[in-house]
């Protein structure tokens, strides 16, 4: 009954991209969702410039799928505009990482973090 992980999950879990966070400052936005107590938490921070996301970093607490999803997402969000970020849907991560059915709820937490990031951006640019 070992959990199964797709090659993409294993790759991102073993070699997470863009781990950490940007310190608060000009052009930096942050989105947080979930909590350590509930077993899944994502913290996304991004630098935005010229109406696009320049770079993204992540912190994550959760199962290997969640760590991998945070890492994978940091590469996917680069270059997105504000409307594109707002339209981001958890199914994109599900397709790329093949989340097991019983873990899909955790992707909604990731989507909440993206939404929070988008809202932070909206506050940054009136």
């Amino acid at each position, binding site marked *: 009954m070992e959990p199964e992980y797709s090659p993409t999950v294993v790759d991102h879990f073993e070699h997470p991209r863009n781990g950490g966070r940007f310190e608060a400052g000009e052009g930096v936005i942050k989105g947080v969702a979930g909590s*350590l107590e509930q*077993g899944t938490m994502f913290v996304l921070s991004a630098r935005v410039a010229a109406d696009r996301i320049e770079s993204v970093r992540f*912190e994550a*607490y959760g199962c290997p799928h*969640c760590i991998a999803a945070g890492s994978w997402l940091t590469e996917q969000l680069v270059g997105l505009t504000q409307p594109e970020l707002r339209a981001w849907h958890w199914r994109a991560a599900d397709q790329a990482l*093949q989340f097991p059915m019983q873990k899909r709820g955790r992707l909604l937490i990731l989507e909440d973090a993206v939404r929070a990031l988008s809202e932070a951006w909206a506050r940054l640019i009136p």
Partner: protein
Amino acid sequence: MNSMSSPAKSAPVIYLDYAATTPVDPRVAEVMIECLRPEGPHGNPSSMGHEPGRRARALVEKARQQVAASIGARPECIVWTSGATESDNLAILGVARFHADRGRHVITARTEHKAVLDAFKQLEKEGFEVTWLKPGVDGIVRPEQVRDALRSDTQLVSLMHVNNETGVIQDVAGVGAICRERGVAFHVDAAQSAGKLPLNVEAMNVDLLSLTAHKSYGPKGVGALYVRRRPPLGLKPLFHGGGQELGLRSGTLPTHQIVGMGEAFEIGERDRESDVARIAVLRERLWQGLTAIGGVELNGHPSERVAGVLNVCFHDVEGESLRFALRELAVSSGSACSSGSDEASYVLRALGRSDQLAQSSIRFSLGRFTTADDVDRAIAIVSREVARLRALTPTADSNGT
């Protein structure tokens, strides 16, 4: 499965799961192989009318003496079974059902192995009342708790000697004295203590004792139940058939398995002190290495524990990620018999650990073939992976802007 990666990495796995099962000692394998050769003792040990049968019987009886000697029992008190699960079921269901007309109250602890817990749950279905004792945060059930729970209609108390998840040792002699004084049958699951602690059923006032071979460098699939014979205990068998083992366990005796168990127990008792001393040093080395990581806590009593088991929880690391990150190590979270689910260990929950910490707990168990190099490599892997995962863990100020 095609698109999924196997969780195992290609590097050789460091085996630190001796509490789940041990490799068979080569000396044990040797005597077992001799039994399986064409010229070996292939007769049915119950066929006393011919030489092949008598030859097999002689080996079975030698093994019975070896196992009996290791627990201070008389050989006729040993009943061969398929392992500790069967021994537990035979002891618990057997005694309770036999004496059901005298009383229907039985006592055990919440931290017992599933084989005991589920046998007691079966008794509940059959109309028995079970008192489930809760251990302290150190994992220990005090003998006074048992004394307080005893009633005039109590038929049986069952308590494990050593907990399979934490390695914590229960005061079975203390409980045994109370049960004997009150005339209540006392069963001990000793699957985890054989070869690790001195066992003497007379001194410990034990009436029934479950043993298994595969946790003591013997083969899987064979075990034994010690049953007190004087005065007779009264036990209803689970199996019906040929009436082997004085009617308590029907079924043809597996000579090679039994011979393996006998040899394993003789070696285990002979080498116990040197094995334990060596393993205790290795466990301390592992503990020092793990505590140096920081944010690590021991689960269970700090000193009342067997040498080989170290169950620790890691703060700020999620359990499934920790287990996957440590797949170069063969270790357990929870008991091997029930792990495989996300569910937190019921043993650690009973000790007061949160779901989160229980899930982030790992049982390292060392044994006869563990080396200092195994331990040092394990420390290096755990240190590296815990640091890596913690670097990604959101910190307390994550919710701030």
